[in-house]
């Protein structure tokens, strides 16, 4: 038990780095996902082509290879990243490419009549997306985004390989310090599990709120009027 107290502070410090990288990469990934997804459904051929290249490139290669490339190869042509920045950029771009497909799919899933209605109402393309399409599409995006967020959290362990002191890295440090290795790693796995579980719960909450905001969720109570309106 006292051994656990000895190594816990270092692991918690690592977990904090893991959380920061997850948050940073999630934010960047979200921006990339919407940029990529909107470009993929846009009318311009060029932006569609850019979106396809981005998505296929980042989904087609390994996240670790992308991270190494940013960290080791780019400095040689003069672009240098801090390790943490390299981690956030690589993971964000990687998860963003998967997110782009989610955004594209969710937008495509909105019934065509909704587009036609916005055209009939003479809405600008921006207004159409902002007020009609996206509010409905976002509800469909949230469940797959939740899965991607868990993938991202697990993916942050890769940054330990470029010597960022995240949870995984600190577990390795403790391993070389000849502590009870099995206990250390069980605690580390449990910490990842708790973080993943928290994210899952948070996303569930968000899903329910988003569904309710466009009138898809369950009502908190069943108004009598609805029952009366039903044919007897």
């Amino acid at each position, binding site marked *: 038990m006292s051994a656990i107290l000895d190594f816990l502070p270092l692991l918690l410090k690592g977990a904090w780095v893991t959380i920061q990288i997850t948050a940073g990469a999630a934010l960047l990934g979200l921006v990339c996902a919407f940029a990529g997804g909107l470009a993929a459904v846009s009318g311009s051929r060029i932006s569609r082509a850019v979106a396809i290249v981005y998505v*296929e*490139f980042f*989904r*087609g*290669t*390994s*996240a*670790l*290879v*992308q991270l*190494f*490339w940013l960290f*080791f*190869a780019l400095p*040689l*042509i003069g672009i240098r990243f801090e390790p943490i920045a390299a981690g956030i950029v690589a993971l964000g771009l990687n998860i963003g490419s998967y997110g782009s497909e989610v955004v594209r799919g969710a937008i495509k899933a909105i019934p065509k009549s909704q587009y036609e209605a916005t055209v009939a109402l003479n809405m600008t393309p921006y207004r159409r997306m902002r007020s009609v399409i996206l509010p409905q599409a976002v509800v469909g995006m949230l469940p797959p985004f939740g899965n991607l967020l*868990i993938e991202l*959290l*697990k*993916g*942050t*362990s*890769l940054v*330990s*390989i470029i010597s960022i002191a995240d949870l*995984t890295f600190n*577990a*390795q440090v403790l*391993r070389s310090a000849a502590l009870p*290795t*099995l206990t250390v*790693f069980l605690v*580390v*796995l449990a910490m*990842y*599990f708790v973080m*993943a*579980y928290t994210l*899952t719960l948070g996303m569930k909450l968000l899903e329910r709120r988003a569904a309710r905001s466009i009138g898809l969720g369950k009502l908190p109570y069943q108004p009598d009027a609805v029952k009366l309106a039903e044919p007897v």
Partner: protein
Amino acid sequence: MIWDWDYTRDILPDLLRGLVVTVQATLVGSVVALLLGLVFALLRRSSLRAVRIVTGAFVEFIRSTPLLVQLYVLFFVLPTVGITLSGFQAGVIGLGVHYATYTSEVYRAGIEGVPRGQWEAATALNLPASRVWRSVILPQAIPRVLPALGNYVIAMFKETPLLSAITVLEMLAIAKGLGSQTFRYLEPLTLVGLLFLLVSLPASLTVRRLERRFGH
């Protein structure tokens, strides 16, 4: 510093040797994932509550924690309790078990997609349980989930560079080794990226074709 073609030509054979290891790890890992995933899916439907709960908890736990940490456990921690695995063995077991938790969900969806009438007909014909699964349910469940399974095989292929962290000399490990000898990382790492694309793009096109063939 610009691209050096002579160096590229020199290192390509080494990287291709790494690609072979990468593909081997993917194939062995896939066999583990595809078989074990089916086992998990069947255990989660067991008539024993305890079996269902334990399998469910194990699957959730493995799926929510990083593969890299699991590989470290297999490679560095298991020897402390007397089980020593080579890097490749630990790698394919780790990959296989991790992705089995994903494929088990795919199988589950496939099994649940088989119409109820098929179960009822099998019961009416008094088929033994093993025969029901082998001849009625799985032959209908598996073809329609083949594309989803294929996607996970591709995902595993892209995860194999993690094996470099447990001393397996796959493509990325070789590229890193070459880079540290010459301080030229640009060529080896870019080539590794291209080689990954070269395999995974045709593979995902194949899966997309499968999807059209078995599409609903």
